[in-house]
Structure formats: C-alpha cells, structure tokens
C-alpha cells in the first residue's frame, strides 16, 4: 500500500504503534511494517514529520539519549495522545463499518 493511501491515517497508526511502548523513529517504522505484514510501503522519511507534529501537539513526548555514539530520540505516547487514539479508532471503526455495509450490498462485476 503506497503512502498516498495512508493519507489522513498515518497519525493514528503511529499513535497505535507507540501505544505499545516507547520507540525511536526507526522502531516506529519497523512496528508499522510488522503490524501491517509489510503492506505499508511508504518513504520512511515521511514518518518523521508525523512524529514531530504529534510531539508538538502534545500527543507524544520525545526524549534524547545516546546509543552507540549517536543521539537518539525516543517517543512516548502521552495521556492526551491515548485519548486522541481512542477517538480516532472509534471514528475509524464507525467509518469502516459503514463502508463495509455499503459494499456488502453491491454485487461485484463479473469478469469475462
């Protein structure tokens, strides 16, 4: 699935991965890939602006540490991030269920 298809959902997905525990950027991308069975194929660099945006919005808190001589920023979901994730998850389930109901009523075109 290309990054464009994830437009509007990546914030929720990043929060969902971080809801499992603190991770740095690389581990967040790895988490997205593992949980989607490699279905999400997006330029890894586009995840960092999302992390920054969520951090600035107060949904995540970032902390610097030094690992192997390199500076590493690890993100942790905040209580308001969890609340936002719950809200988004509930909206997504409602949306997904509504779309599913509409599609179930459609007869698929047969191929010749």
């Amino acid at each position, binding site marked *: 699935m290309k990054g464009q298809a*994830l*437009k*509007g*959902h*990546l*914030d*929720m997905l990043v929060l969902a991965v971080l809801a499992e525990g603190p991770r*740095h*950027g*690389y581990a967040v991308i790895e988490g997205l890939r593992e949980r989607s069975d490699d279905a999400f194929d997006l*330029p*890894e*660099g*586009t995840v*960092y*602006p*999302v992390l*920054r*945006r*969520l951090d*600035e*919005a107060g*949904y995540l808190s970032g902390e610097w540490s030094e*690992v192997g001589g*390199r*500076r*590493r*920023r690890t993100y942790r979901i905040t209580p308001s991030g969890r609340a*936002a994730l719950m809200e*988004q998850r509930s909206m997504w389930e409602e949306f997904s269920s509504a779309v599913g109901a509409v599609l179930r009523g459609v007869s698929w075109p047969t191929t010749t």
Partner: protein
Amino acid sequence: MADHDLIEAYLAELRGTLAWRRDDDELVDEISDHLHEAAERLLSNGTEHRAAQEQSLAQFGDPVVVARAFATTSSGGIAMPTQFTRTAGSTALIAAAFWALMALTGFVGGTELIFDGQLAPYVLWAVVSGIAGILSVVSLAGLLVRCGGLRGAVPAAALAVATIGAVMLGITTWAWVVWTALLAIATGLTVWRMHTSGTRREPGDWVAVAAWPIGIAVFVLLTQIGLGPVDYYGDYPVANAAGLTVGALLFAVGLGRLGRWLRSEEPVEASSPMAST
C-alpha cells in the same frame, strides 16, 4: 565519493533544505541515527557496505521530498498554501501591473522630459509608486508565509525593510534609487528563504531580486556617461527614466511570476494534527 560518505552527503543536503527550521540540528541527528541503524541492519544481513547505504537512503526518500514533508509541520509556522497565500498571489499580479504603471507614470512624472516641472504628474507617479510598494509588501508576506511563516529573523527583516522601502517610496518617490534598493534586499531575503526551505527552487525567481539592482545600474551608468540634457536639479532625466523603466518592468515580470505560482496553488487549510498527513 567514498562509500562511507553516502549517508553524510545525504545528511548535508537535507541539512541545507531544513536550514530554515529552528530544530534543524535535532532533525538531522534523528535522521542520521535512523539511516545508520538501517544501514547497519542491512550489513548484518550480509548486504555489501555500499549497497546497504544506498538501500537505506532509497527507503528513506529523496531529501527534498522529506524536507517538503517537514515544511507542513509546525516550526514557528506551517509552510503550505492557504487562502492568504493565494490572495497574496493575486495581489502580486496587481502589484506587477502597478509597477508597469509606475514605469510609465515615472517617465512623465519623475522627469521633466515631457511635463516641465508640473506637480500633478509627479503626484500621480508618487501615488502609483506607493500603491505598487505596499502591494509588493503584501505579496512578499504571502511568499514568506508559504515557506514557513513570518516568525524568525529573516522574515522579520524582509518585511521591515520592504515596508520602509514601500512607504518611503510613496513619500519621497524622487529618491526611488534608495527605496527600490530596499525592496530588492527584502525580495532577495524572501527568495533566499524560499530556496533554503526547499519550498521552491526556480532560477527564474531571481529576476525579481535582480530587477532593481539592474535598473539602478542603468541609472548610474547613464548618469556617469552624461546622456541627454541636464534638468533643473542637475540630474540626467534620460538616465532617470531609463533606469526606472528597466527596474520597474523587470520587477513587474519577476513579481508577476511569483504571484502566478502563489495563485495557482490550492489552499490547504490548517487542521488538527490528527487530520493531516
């Protein structure tokens, strides 16, 4: 280039495109950690050194694309087309028309080549110049908003210099050489910010920056040559008219070009962090 330089070269390029952000050093450190970790994982899986670096960079994405993604993330401003930037684009097109009119009215009101010392043509020239200047300040503000906002030293300096230049141009239009030089400086700062933020990198944008320096150079050159008659004030009206015309028309072309771009972009309204990616 040595193999180990691939990631460093990428980071250097990225640093250039993120230089407008206050947190650019932190971002580059974070991305450096990512790229090195990705390359190390590939190396541990048996991938050859250079291939590991190339693959980790390819997976991360083009530095300009990444910088653009960051440009939509708040850092003292949001670099995206808005209703204001679009309106500023329309304003720039109107300003371009006023600059062309400024050249025309300057020819009759700023020299004594046609009307000999009459006040009305001069006042008309001054009014047109003032309007062109103020509209240009709005246009530059739109461009600065488009590439990250008005906060920070560069946007503040650009707007302050442009405002002084525009206001003074309307009040003492006869000293156009000084005030348009200020507009050129402000335009230069704005275009430089557009380029360093990665928002837009069109060589043609520098036409607006070079316009007034070229016009002023024409004025100085013809004055030095002593072309044409000398007026009551001891100036050379032909040099004045030629420099003014060249500067104003080139600036109209450059500003119009920037205005067309701003106007062509669909506004992206700022929304909650959860709604945009």
